[in-house]
């Protein structure tokens, strides 16, 4: 039986749900679809979810991942939740800057800063 590699790790803290991406490279459409399914199921579990996405492991991503983040953020805000991104390395952050998504997403240096800023 083929081993299924988890795409995300999920941690629950007092007031936040922290989802970490496990893959270094997020490129393939099927992987992005799998991520969407996993993250959306976490989002749907809670009303007013306070979700933090941790990019510590991510070294490379395509613009399709940005699309995924937009879809996730729309769903979270529909449910009156909050979304924060953190631990984005400089090369990936540059992609957010170029696409002006730094104005759309709340981006933090690390998980602690993101948690601190949750209302």
């Amino acid at each position: 039986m083929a081993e299924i590699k988890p795409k995300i790790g999920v941690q629950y803290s007092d007031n936040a749900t922290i989802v970490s991406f496990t893959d270094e490279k997020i490129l393939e459409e099927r992987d992005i679809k799998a991520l969407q399914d996993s993250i959306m199921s976490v989002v749907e579990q809670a009303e007013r979810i306070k979700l933090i996405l941790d990019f510590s492991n991510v070294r490379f991503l395509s613009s399709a991942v940005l699309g995924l983040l937009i879809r996730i953020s729309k769903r979270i805000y529909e449910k009156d939740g909050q979304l924060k991104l953190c631990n984005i390395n400089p090369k990936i952050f540059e992609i957010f800057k170029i696409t002006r998504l730094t104005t759309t997403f709340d981006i933090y240096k690390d998980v602690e800063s993101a948690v601190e800023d949750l209302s």
Partner: protein
Amino acid sequence: MVKVCDQALSKLEAYGFGKDDIFAVHLALEEAFLNAVKHGNKMDSSKEVKIDYSVDLDKIEISMTDQGDGFEPSSVADPRYGEDLYKPGGRGLLLMNSYMDVVKFNEQGNSLYMVRYKEKPRLTKDKDQTEV
């Protein structure tokens, strides 16, 4: 595509291109390929995307051709402003233009030519230097 991409990036490394160049070319290749498959060939698996590249000491040139009808690049909305900022797609071309030094399409719009020049090392500015 994975094989072509790995080969191209390995060649860049062998020719002394830095990490920023390699990241840039990798991203542009992925975005261009995705566009060719999704928008060019309309996800038709019977259609091909042809990729050619050449690497020399100071640049990489890439050409990519799909079997679609083509498109008009200037008709693609800028995804950085207005409602388009909140759309899930439409950022591939912006990223290609941002990370490559040359991005040109043929008249039909189904063939792409891109160039990235090797990044020159940044000179460290001496504190005592006066700006001219």
